[in-house]
Every structure is written in structure tokens, then in C-alpha cells.
């Protein structure tokens, strides 16, 4: 007695194809959508004060270290205290409604609650000062901040991404005096010099995890 229809004989073929297509799809899907490149890069939350790096760092050409002052001496890039902003805005644009939050903070002594953009996992102990000392420029990790009206995450900041540079930092190295320069391009001989550098970032666990 014939239990199954003839068409069922195509089952193996169909199944094989299905598995191939589906499996492939899922894999590539996860590969792309779940990677920090997709989940992290481009994160640009709204800030309590519409502070434009484009304006300050770009057009006004302020040096990064004017606000992030401690960055060469500390693991943390400090977010400037209200005080620092008031340094100028006590005179410049002192009544601008955009700066209301800033003035409140200055009056009340309550901090401005900025939203964190660049974040590495809690168990990663990233040290700004060391990277600057090694000659890695701001732009390598933070992108063209000077062109960002709203700060946006530019790089995935995940382990593989870190390792790429730790394994071969040379493309990201530059003279110490060019660290905050967003547009720096190595001249021919600078390029050759930098190519010489034997520097390597740590690739063992305790280099970043403690």
C-alpha cells in the first residue's frame, strides 16, 4: 500500500536546500547584526546640553586637552567640570537659552548629567594616558570629532578591534605633538620613521583585564 505521495520523494532535495539557505542566512545575519560594528557604532544619544564639538573643536579649533585636560596623565579622559565651560561662557553667550542647564549647574553645584557615548565593558581597564604616550591620536578611536555636531561612536570598541591595533599599531601612530590633530597625514619621511617603530600593544589578558 502506497502511504506517501510521489511528491514526497523530493523531500531530501528540498530539505538539503532549505537547511543550506536558512543556515547560511542566519549565520550571516548574526555575523553582521550582532557585531558591535552594527550594535555600537553610530550611537549618538541626545545630551542635556547641545554641545557641538564641530563648533568648538572644529570651527573654533580648540585643542581637545583644553577641556579633557588630564588625559595625558590619567587613565580617564575627564569630562570637563562646569567650571571649565563657565571659563568662557561667563562672558561668551552668557544668556543663551541653550546654556540654561549649564548655568543651573554652576549655580546649584549639581553636575551636568552627560550621557556616556564611548563605553568599554566594565572589566576592560582602558588607559588614555598610555595610548597617548605611545602616539595614538584621538581620531584613531573617536573619529572626526571635530566634524560631529552631536558626538557619535565612530569605532566598535570591541576586543577584536582593540587587538587589531595592538597587533599592528603602526598605522595609528603619529608624532606626540600631533596627537590631537584630527587631519594629520604623515609626510613621506614621517611615514618611513613610523614604519620603523617596533611598538606593540599587550595581547595578554592582564594587559587590559584585572
Amino acid at each position, binding site marked *: *500500500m*502506497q*502511504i*506517501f*505521495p*510521489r*511528491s*514526497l*520523494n523530493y*523531500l*531530501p532535495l528540498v530539505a538539503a536546500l532549505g537547511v543550506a539557505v536558512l543556515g547560511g542566512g542566519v549565520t550571516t545575519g548574526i555575523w553582521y547584526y550582532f557585531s558591535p560594528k552594527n550594535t555600537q557604532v553610530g550611537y549618538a544619544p541626545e545630551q542635556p546640553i547641545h554641545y557641538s564639538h564641530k563648533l568648538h573643536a572644529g570651527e573654533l579649533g580648540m585643542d581637545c586637552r583644553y577641556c579633557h585636560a588630564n588625559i595625558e596623565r590619567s587613565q580617564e579622559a575627564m569630562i570637563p567640570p562646569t567650571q571649565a565651560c563657565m571659563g568662557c561662557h561667563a562672558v561668551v553667550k552668557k544668556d543663551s537659552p541653550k546654556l540654561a542647564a549649564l548655568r543651573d549647574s554652576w549655580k546649584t553645584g549639581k553636575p551636568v548629567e552627560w550621557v556616556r557615548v564611548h563605553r568599554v565593558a566594565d572589566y576592560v581597564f582602558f588607559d588614555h594616558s598610555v595610548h597617548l604616550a605611545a602616539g595614538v591620536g584621538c581620531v584613531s578611536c573617536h573619529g572626526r570629532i571635530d566634524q560631529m555636531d552631536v558626538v557619535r561612536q565612530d569605532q566598535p570598541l570591541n576586543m577584536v578591534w582593540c*587587538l587589531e591595533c595592538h597587533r599592528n599599531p603602526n598605522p595609528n601612530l603619529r608624532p606626540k605633538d600631533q596627537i590631537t590633530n584630527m587631519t594629520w597625514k604623515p609626510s613621506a619621511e614621517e611615514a618611513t620613521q613610523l614604519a620603523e617603530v617596533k611598538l606593540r600593544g599587550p*595581547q*595578554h589578558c592582564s594587559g587590559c583585564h584585572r
Partner: protein
Amino acid sequence: MSEQATSKRPVVYLAEYDSPDAIIHAAEGVRDAGYEKWDVHSPYPVHGMDAAMGLPDSGLGWIVLLCGLTGVTAAVVMIQWMNGIDYPLVIGGKPPDAIPSMVPIMFELTVLLSAFGAVFGMLGLNALPRHHHPVFYSDRFEAFSHDKFFISIEVEDKKFDKEKTKQLLESLHSTHVELVEEEVA
């Protein structure tokens, strides 16, 4: 029942046998009669039937060998690349690309892929799963998995002839010969 039905087209002759001896003689008969698209159905593998049907040896071994080689290569490449090249870490003071510690996994992957080769190769060569097949039209055929033996000759065989083939099968002491037909679509 399929006999009575209208607008049928014959697909296969089924000849039934009771004993392994009978079926093996019959098989030799059919073989010598020069049929090609025919088969023997038995509840268990009958000893010497391949010879009786004049079948060549199974080529499955080669498929398995290929898969096995793939397995061992995959293991070596994977381990060497992951631990030795992509992210070499100092583990217990040993060289990252140490060979001895690779052996167990090399072996396991060889066996795993060989096994896949054996099973799926077998199914492939047998064109299984094939849930629909003309022989299943016959109700008597169900006994093949119990204790009966069958010879099936398909109409597609170029020597197939409704009469001659029937005679041949009967001449081979079949206990029952049946022309299985299927409805024409």
C-alpha cells in the same frame, strides 16, 4: 485491487518467493536473462545475492576515505590557525602551536566526518529517503519485511515485455507473479 482500476499503466512486475534458495536461483535467472532495471527485495541481506544479481562491489569506502581525510585536515588547520597563528597565547609555557596536544581532536574529527560519510554516502548511493515507490502499490509486497522474498522488474527496462517477462518469472518458480500498475496522472 489495482488490477480492477481503470486507466492504469503497468510499472513493475513483482515475483514472490518463499526461501532464500529460491530467490537466489531466480535472481541468477533474471541476471542471465540480461535484465538491468530489476531488483531483489528481502527481509534481510541474503548471502551471495550480489553475485547472483551480478552487482559490483560497493564504492562507499572511497567516499568515507575522502571524508576522513577532510576531517583530519580540518582539525589540523583549525587548531593551528586558532591557537598558533590567529591568537597565540602562552599556555603553561608550551609553544602555542604544539603538535602533541592536537592529536586527540584530529582523531575525533576524522572519525566524525568518516561516520557522516558512511551514513549519508550510503543514503545517497541508495537514493534514500524515497518514500514513494511503485512497488508499494502492491499489498503483497508488504511481506518483504516479514519473511518473503521478491523480484521486481521495472517497465523502464528495455527488455521488459508484458508477456515474456511474466513467463520468465513464472519459469523461475515464483509462488506468485503480479503486475503492479499505477494510475496515469
